[in-house]
């Protein structure tokens, strides 16, 4: 039971709902495609509030910082966008996945 509660308190979708209820603006990032040894499977969520709080993960921690920064922008523009991360993709993104995998992440505004 204790395990259930801690899982719930780190639940990105529940965090997103709670933040919205608090009147905060929120974005949700979701892994929609993976290639190679991606650290988190498709469907994984990272919820981000307008003030930079976040819950969940879309990688092993390698790209979350970049996703949070993009999410703030998504909240401002109120339009979804797709981000792509890969270890060799230095031209598009400064951050990469150290595992060598590639992921695509959909970031969308909530509410």
């Amino acid at each position, binding site marked *: 039971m204790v395990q259930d509660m801690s899982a719930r308190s780190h639940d990105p979708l529940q965090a997103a*709902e709670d933040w919205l209820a608090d009147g905060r603006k929120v974005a949700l990032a*979701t892994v929609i495609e993976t290639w190679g040894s991606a650290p988190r499977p*498709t*469907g994984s969520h990272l919820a981000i509030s307008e003030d930079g709080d976040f819950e969940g993960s879309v990688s092993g921690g390698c790209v979350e910082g970049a996703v949070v920064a993009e999410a703030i922008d998504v909240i401002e523009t109120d339009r979804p966008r797709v981000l792509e991360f890969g270890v060799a993709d230095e031209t598009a993104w400064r951050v990469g996945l150290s595992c060598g995998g590639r992921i695509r992440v959909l970031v969308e505004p*909530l*509410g």
Partner: protein
Amino acid sequence: MKKSILEQLNEARASRRGAVTVASEEEGVRQLLLEGEMPDDALGQAASKVLRAGKAGTADVDGEALFLNAYVPPVRFVVIGAVHISQALAPMARAAGYDLEIIDPRGAFATPDRFPDVTLHADWPQDVLSSRPLDAYTALAAITHDPKIDDPALIAALEANCFYIGALGSRKTHGRRIERLTDAGFGQAAIGRIDAPIGLDIGAANPQEIAVAVLAQMIAAFRKRGMESLV
């Protein structure tokens, strides 16, 4: 994703109901489909497929690439009987990633000494299950060998449509069980959902091996659930 969809999704997850979100890259999540209410079209079929697999994925529906995310409730594995087989089964189930809990009204059997780190209910199944009802994402194995304890749990499992129902006992024992369940008003199809004698037929020769057979049978039932509805 609209706030209302997020709230419905969280409600479905809290009530242990399967759900699928439908998203496009341009709009994000635009629709929520709930288990048992799938539309009878290409989208409904694609959503049912990801729900069964428990794995998100992209599907081409009517010429549009859609991202379908599956929200499958975690499996609850309820074992009736704090017996030797359960002692072997509990750590095996945990190693395989399944949370197991044990119900046995016999206080001498259901002791933390015999079952360290396992959720134990030293109470009658009907009492425990009335406060924590079974559901379609619950597996139930009744292995006390005592109809007084096993039968109420099996009846609850049939009524809740548990994805796996197994019962220990020889064919002869199961024959008498079928008579009792028939008297209780269950038809052949419902009773046929009970796997008995319990466990995959691997020639298990001791409690540890029976535990392997039960765990494998439960996993197979989970991973293959709903396949018959494809036909």
